[in-house]
């Protein structure tokens, strides 16, 4: 796999991460080995790469910039970390354009350039019953949230996932969540599930206060924020925006918040419903 020969005279490899961190710096873009690529369902891929630094530092809802091997496509492709296993990091992504098409064609043994982990993740400090409400390709970061929450005895994770059709992430979330419910477009939506949860009095399961973590399509997140606001439940929402750099230097990734235009990449991607002015 050859690439970017003319762009830069070298691509930092693994040892550069070590050097950067030893010198007190965050690792720059560097080249890592892909260990597994699986197609979960039609045009949804799970890609795993070896990166001890990201593996040991990534927080849920933080993301990594992946770069294609095609020099026409210089810009980063951001993906939420979906799982960490030892020094291996996984992302789950849908093939929606030229970049993801190409990443989907990579195989174990190939390499990929990566920068990360980036952004501010979910705040999981409170002991709570975290309700992870995900839709479509918003699901992957919530799997990682479930994985991290599983390490805390004092918090619980209830996953509520909505899918277009195939429930592609069930295998992964079921590894970690205390409860996991899912629904697809033919059956209804995640707010239906939230209502059921409330009716079954499971919102405050384990005697913990509920906190919603959500990631998914904008209309879904707005509905979830409304739902949470009506009940006075805190909600942290992970946003998406087209990015230039992913690490806060270019101001290309803003969204409108009550505090003005903020950067999704470094002020977010996680914002509270209050910051977004949603659910009023």
């Amino acid at each position, binding site marked *: 796999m050859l690439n970017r020969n003319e762009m830069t005279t070298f691509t930092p490899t693994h040892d550069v991460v070590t050097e950067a961190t030893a010198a007190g710096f965050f690792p720059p873009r560097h080249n890592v080995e892909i260990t597994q690529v699986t197609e979960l369902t039609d045009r949804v891929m799970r890609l795993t790469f070896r990166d001890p630094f990201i593996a040991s530092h990534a927080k849920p809802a933080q993301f990594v910039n992946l770069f294609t091997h095609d020099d026409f496509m210089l810009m980063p492709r951001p993906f939420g970390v979906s799982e960490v296993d030892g020094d291996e990091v996984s992302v789950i992504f849908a093939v929606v354009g030229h970049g993801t098409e190409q990443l989907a064609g990579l195989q174990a043994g190939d390499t990929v350039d990566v920068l990360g982990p980036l952004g501010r993740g979910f705040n999981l400090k409170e002991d709570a019953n975290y309700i992870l409400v995900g839709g479509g390709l918003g699901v992957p970061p919530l799997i990682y949230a479930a994985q991290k929450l599983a390490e805390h005895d004092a918090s619980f994770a209830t996953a509520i996932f909505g899918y277009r059709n195939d429930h592609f992430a069930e295998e992964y979330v079921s590894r970690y969540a205390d409860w996991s419910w899912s629904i697809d477009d033919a059956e209804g939506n995640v707010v239906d599930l939230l209502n059921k949860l409330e009716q079954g009095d499971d919102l405050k399961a384990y005697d913990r206060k509920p906190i919603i973590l959500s990631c998914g399509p904008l209309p879904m997140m707005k509905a979830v924020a409304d739902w949470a606001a009506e009940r006075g439940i805190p909600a942290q929402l992970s946003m998406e925006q087209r990015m230039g750099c992913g690490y806060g230097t270019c101001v*290309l990734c803003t969204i409108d918040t009550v505090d003005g235009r903020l950067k999704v990449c470094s002020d977010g991607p996680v914002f509270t419903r209050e910051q977004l002015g949603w659910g009023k």
Partner: protein
Amino acid sequence: MSANNQSAQGGDNHINLYEPHVWKHHTKVAGLEWKNPVGTASGTFQYAAVRWFYDVSQLGAVCTKGASPVPWEGNPSPRTAESPAANINAVGLQNPGIDHYLAEDLPKLKAAGAFVISNVAGHCDDDYAAVVEKLADSDADMLEINVSCPNVSAGGMSVGTDPVALANLMDRLRPMTDKPMIVKLTPNVTDITVPARAAVEHGADALSMINTLKGMRINIRTGKPIIANVTGGVSGPAVLPVGLAAVYRVRTALPEIPIIGLGGIDSGEKALEYLYAGANAVEVGAAALFDPVAPLRVARELDDLLDSRPELAAKLAAGQTWR
């Protein structure tokens, strides 16, 4: 050769950016010494973001995001689209304003040991004057007047395309400060030597070029422009030949004026092309979006490339240029 070993020149393909480095080749721009000829380009460098990746005092200069008299919110999102070998941006000069800049950004950069070029944004002459007035007594090393932003409707590029307006602006700004004043030019003109001459004749100490090229992409699923602002500014490797031609032409027309060349630089080799085209120094913009350490790497690669080019290196150190 594998992807793990992508040296393109057969040279040393592993420069350790984190080891202490003594810069071998300096340059001089408008009488001020840079420790190496590589700076960052305005709008692609924010100290709060970059400081985690490398020591910014290692660069020849850092040029900060355009500051306006009051905070500007910029354009709506999406603000960016990709294009072959390029980025298109339509930030529209979002920035927290000059007071914030002077209170927060500049002191931190100076404390970190950076050589700072403060980029000045405006919608009208009064805007520019208000910012320059505040920068006049600041710790900024140089000022850069951005009359070439394609993403704001008033001011910005319109001044840079009109030599009379540019002359008037410079007549107003020039007496306000002794700091070296760089005028940043746009390539979106018929003849770049016209605004270049106007700027120099009215007091510019140096010129920088190029700002971004006007461009756009369309989403073929919706039939609509990708960027909310419709058009944006093209930067990155795709614009390299346009930037080189601009520098070459202005250097031919104005043999003496210091020039900072930029546009599409992502390697020491491309920086070197700008120096051969007649620049005294260069800046790295979009490449830093794709890899935070790009400016430092370019500086290190260039430092090595200049070893075998003593004539060029000597000229730069003396404040002269190749052409």
